[in-house]
């Protein structure tokens, strides 16, 4: 599925490019609760991609544990969810990712943020509070707003696993999918 770019708005990230970054970083398992921001541009394509094992969980904190446990066998994973799921999982993230210092990598769609606003300038309270919460937890976060941000994904994941640190990507615009295969 493709999406048009509205005049005046920065170009959204490209789903194929994000998936290519995940593959380059050796991510083989995606754990997810569906998120409307990343549904068409990431989760549906991932669900059809034989290079990924997709684990659909009922609740996002399950995914925190699954990703952490997979790291013991050097299996790289990504937890794909919405910021509502991130908020619901904060205690699991606090304990399993942060207290235990384990490489739990998360990709979070910011539902309610419009393309023409920044995260901090968002009209949505649920969007604005995410970076300060992650900062308070000392959880590294990387904004993915446009296609120029996507090359940061692979190196950030590699670093997370090399240093055994948690990581959270914040997806500020729905990734577009042009129909190709990463």
């Amino acid at each position: 599925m493709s999406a048009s770019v509205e005049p005046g708005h920065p170009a959204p990230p490209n789903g194929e490019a994000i998936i290519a970054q995940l593959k380059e970083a050796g991510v083989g398992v995606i754990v997810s609760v569906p998120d409307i921001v990343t549904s068409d541009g990431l989760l549906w394509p991932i669900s059809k991609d034989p290079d990924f094992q997709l684990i659909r969980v009922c609740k996002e904190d399950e995914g925190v544990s699954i990703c952490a446990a997979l790291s013991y066998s050097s299996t790289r994973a990504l937890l794909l969810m919405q910021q509502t799921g991130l908020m619901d999982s904060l205690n699991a993230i606090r304990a399993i990712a942060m207290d235990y210092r384990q490489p739990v990598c998360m990709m979070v769609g910011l539902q309610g943020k419009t393309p023409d606003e920044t995260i901090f300038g968002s009209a949505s309270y649920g969007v604005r509070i995410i970076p300060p919460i992650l900062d308070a937890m000392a959880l590294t976060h990387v904004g993915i707003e446009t296609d120029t941000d996507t090359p940061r994904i692979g190196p950030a994941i590699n670093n997370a696993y090399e240093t055994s640190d948690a990581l959270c990507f914040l997806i500020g615009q729905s990734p577009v999918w042009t129909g190709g295969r990463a």
Partner: protein
Amino acid sequence: MIRRDFALCALRGLIKPRDLVVAVYQSCFDWLALCPRDLNYVSTGAMGQASSHALGLAIGSPDRQVIVLDGDGSLLMNLGSLVTIATVRPQHFLHLVFENGVYEVNGEHPTPGAGKVDFAAMAIAAGYQRAVCFSELGAFEAALSELLAADGPVMAVLKIIPGVAYPRDYAYIHSEETREKFRAALNRIDG
């Protein structure tokens, strides 16, 4: 009712060196005293998460037997994991639920639905391959080998009373050293 330490002793007799045991709360402390081994996974972090950690281990090491020593209060916090586990369908996955109807390490307050909730029925409804409930030690001992060999995921609910009270060493289960010991054992070539 089954004494928990007796049930764990029965399990200890059938544990193989490569098996992964995920344990929580008092079952964990008892297990660590009765069967200390590097492949005990005890850093589950947040209450209710044992079954999800176990699923991650099972996905990462599909040839190994994974055994979860869960509690009824803990499982109530993560009932959705039953559906997730049944959907992934790990083949060597035995989920033991020690049911005593109370939050034992948090003041022994009753769990919601204590004595009424049917965890085995929930597991079957979620899609587990098999689920059984035991209230007598002999019946559990007689069935355990077969449960370990059965196609998973399998649940066994044990109606328990406490046995010997083994010390609660929280510092050990949360320590980095414990996690590194597990990681090293898991990645040993013949580990």
